[in-house]
Every structure is written in C-alpha cells, then in structure tokens.
C-alpha cells in the first residue's frame, strides 16, 4: 500500500502500478465489493421518496452523459486549447460508458439465466406436469454452458488444454453448436415459412382495396425476385432482357422495363422505400418522445 499512493499521485491516478498489479487489482475489487454492497443498509434506510429520488437521479445522470455529448457543440479549443476540434470534452467518455453498459448487460444475462434455471429446477423438484422436459432443458443448458464457457476461455488463451481434453472440447462444442444448435435454429425459423402462408390466406381473403393492393404487391415481389419471374417474363411472354439500347423509342423502352424482375425491383426501391422511410420517421419521432419521457422519469412504473 505504501507504493501505490505515491504512484497514483506521481504517475497516472487512474492506473495501478505494474509491479504487483494482480495483488492490488484483487484488493481494489474486494474493496469495491465491500463498499458497494456496504451501501445497501444505507440505501435501505431511505424513505420511499428518497428511494425514488435516487432512481430518478441515476436515470437522469446516465442519460445526461450521452445527451450532453450529443447536444454540446464540438470544438472546445477556446476552453481546452489542446482538445481535438472534431469532438467535445465528453466524447472520450462515451466509449468507456458504453463498455460499462455492456458489462451490466452481461450481468443482466445472468439474471435471465438464473430465472430460467430457477423455474425449471422448481418444475423438477415439485414434479410438476411434464417436468421431464425441464430435465432435458437443464441438462442441455448445463452441457452447453460448460462447453461454451470453456471454448471462450480457450479462445482467449485463459484455459490451456492439450491432448484428449482439447479434442473433447473441440469435438463436443462442434457437435453441440454446429450440428445441434445451428440446425435447430435454422429449422425453427424455417418453420415460419409454413405458418406465414396460412397467415397470408387469412389476410388476403379480406375483400377490400387495401387487401387487394397488399396481395398483388406481395405476389409480384415474390415471383419477381426468384427465377420464376424471369422465366415468365423472358421465356413465356418473350419480353426483351436487359436495359433498352441507347436511342431506342418509347415503346422499346417500355418493353424493356415491364418484366417481372424489373417491376419487383421498382416496387421495392421506388414504392416501398419511401413508405418504409415514412414509417421510420414516425418511429424515430415517437422514440425520441419516449426517450425524453424515460430520461426525465416521466414514464411511471418504469423507474
């Protein structure tokens, strides 16, 4: 401890000395745990209004960093002459702040996992209906978690395996990931192809102008983007392929652009793009309004 204090003052206050860094880092982490968890009785002693004030303040401060970095103008050389003119003084803090969010997000993953495991363990312990499937889930989870974590550690050179254990890890992870999870994933999502047709039938049988437009557009796009569209246009209807030659008449130009693949492309990029952009603008403005409400804790029940 004698070495660390002069080092912090003389060198970089944010960085631990290289000598005995592992020991210092471990002590600091333990200290941080004691300090942060030691705050709990203090927080618990707060009245309900004080608790809400803390949550609201933290929410506001967390958003303030990103909002201020966005709203403050760049080029702070008048105040900080050495600063980079393409950014303001908060810009360097954005990446570390995002790393903090990523770390908390990783902890939240553990929260979800804990919830899942707790639910299925309870199913098994209490022998609830179809508890056998919960056993399957738990075994699959534990096996995959072991291989996935070991594989991640091995990739980071934190787990050094050789010989048979290494082969078991590689082969086991390949079977679990490539031959099982990836296949189940693809099968599960391709299953939607079947259901989307029944959904389409229900949507299109509604007899209205809107439903007709929707059906017609979907049919043209579906046929136009696959080889069937080109076959109908060029083989069956005999339409000319490719762009019209330079200086061609209006009739030839029209014939060159009424094939199904061209019409499908035109629908996608000329008619669909602005409609989607309008939806996105609506989403963006709505999102902005919601972001302000959340940031200022005006949205009750969230914070």
């Amino acid at each position, binding site marked *: 401890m004698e070495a660390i204090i002069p080092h912090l003052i003389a060198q970089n206050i944010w960085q631990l*000395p290289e000598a005995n860094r592992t020991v210092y880092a471990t002590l600091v982490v333990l200290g941080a745990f004691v300090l942060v968890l030691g705050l709990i009785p203090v927080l618990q002693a707060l009245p309900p209004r004080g608790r809400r004030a803390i949550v609201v303040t933290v929410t506001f401060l967390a958003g303030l960093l990103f909002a201020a970095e*966005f709203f403050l103008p760049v080029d702070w050389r008048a105040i900080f002459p050495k600063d980079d003119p393409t950014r303001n003084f908060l810009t360097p803090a954005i990446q570390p702040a995002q790393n*903090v969010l990523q770390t908390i997000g990783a902890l939240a*993953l553990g929260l979800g996992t804990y919830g899942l495991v707790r639910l299925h363990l309870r199913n098994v312990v209490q022998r609830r209906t179809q508890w056998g499937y919960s056993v399957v*889930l738990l075994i699959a989870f534990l096996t995959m978690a072991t291989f996935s974590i070991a594989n991640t550690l091995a990739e980071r050179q934190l787990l050094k395996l050789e010989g048979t254990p290494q082969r078991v890890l590689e082969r086991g992870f390949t079977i679990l990931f490539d031959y099982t999870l990836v296949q189940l994933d693809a099968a*599960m999502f391709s299953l939607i*192809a079947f259901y989307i047709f029944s959904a389409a039938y229900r949507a299109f049988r509604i007899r209205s102008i809107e439903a007709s437009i929707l059906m017609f557009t979907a049919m043209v796009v579906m046929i136009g983007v696959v080889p069937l569209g080109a076959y109908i246009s060029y083989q069956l209807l005999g339409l000319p392929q490719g762009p019209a030659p330079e200086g061609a008449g209006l009739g030839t130009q029209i014939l060159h652009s009424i094939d199904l693949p061209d019409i499908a492309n035109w629908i996608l990029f000329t*008619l669909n793009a602005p409609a989607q952009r309008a939806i996105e603008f609506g989403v963006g403005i709505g999102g902005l309004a919601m972001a302000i409400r959340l940031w200022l804790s005006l949205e009750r029940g969230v914070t």
Partner: protein
Amino acid sequence: MDWFMEFLPRTPERLGIWIGVICTLAIYSLLYRENPFYRFFEHMYIGLAAGYSLGPLGVDVLYRYWVEPIWVQGYWAWAFVVPYGMYLYFIFSERYGWISRIVIGTLIGASAGLFFQEFSSRYLPQLNSTLQKPLWLSSANPDLTVSMVINNFLFVIILLSVLTYFTFSYEQRGGVKRFATLGRWFLMIGLGAIFGNTVMARMGLLIGRIYYILNDWLMIPIGGAQ
C-alpha cells in the same frame, strides 16, 4: 451397398449430420401436431441457446470489459462496475427489490441518451437525402433522366402521403383525407413488398433445410453439388 455404408453415421462428420437431420425432423414434426418428440427438442433448443449465450455474451464480455481493464491494464475504477451491476440481482428480493431499479434506471437512462445520438446518425441523414432529391431536369444535374425525376416525385409524394396518414393530431377532412387515403394505399404496397420479401427469406431457409436433408444426409447431388 457403398452408398449405404457411406450413409451410416460411421464418422464424426456423418454422426453430426445425422444429429442435425434428427433435430430438423423433430422441429418439423410440429406441422403434423404438437408431440413429445417436438417438445423434447424444443426444450433442448432453449437449453442449448441459453447455455451458449453464457460464453460469448457473458464470460467474454466480462473478461474484455471488466477483468482485462483491471487486472491487465490496471484501471482500478472499473472495479466498481460489477458490484454495482450486482444490484440487479436484488430483483428477486421483496425487501430489497427496489435497489435493482437503480441499475435498471442506469440502463434505461443511458438507452434514452443513446437514442438522441441514434436519431442524429440514422434519421437526419435520411431526411437530408429526401430533401435533396432533384425534382426537375437542370444543367446542374446532367446525368438526371426523366424516369429518375418521375421516381423522385413519386418518392416525395409517397413519403408525404404516408406521413399524412400517420398524423392523428387533428381530424382529417376533404383533400387531406383523400391524400391520407392515398398514403394508406401506398402503405399497403410497402407492407405487401415487406411481406413478399419475408416470405421469400423464410422460403430460403426452408430450401436450405431441404437441401441439407437431400444433399448432405441422403447424399443426393442437387444443383451441381457432388
């Protein structure tokens, strides 16, 4: 006989393909009706997906953004991040549950702040490109053709009509209502195109599965595959 011997799961690769096919058929068995075979693989899928995420999304992120900065680079301030994040786990406690809302508030506040940045980087350039679309032929744009101008006009009209349709701040009457109806029809064209694209994407996945079963498992060469 040679085909049959090759077909059997006698090598690790063949065994993997057999496992993949069994998984695929188990999931597709739902098309007939809900059955124990499907339920077994469905639960296995959830377990595997949850287990897998712990490696790259849990351990890897914690190592990169917490362990490495503290123990390798020596940045001690990061030590407070994980104890603070651990407050999330109080969500399971009735007495201390409110403490988890401090961390949830951090995530929500930061997400709201990040949305301001996203709005500028995502929506403002789109607005800019829409406003800059040339709507008439001029010597300033020698490459512009009549069809491009017509398409640009269509783009602006569709965008404005759909935005009008989504304006609920006042009662739409007369010309505005007719313009909004036009917007609704254009919206249907857009949704039809999205639907068609989604169907084709799912069909692509289905074709991929059929190809896997026929080509990889049954070893029937399709589309020039050996």
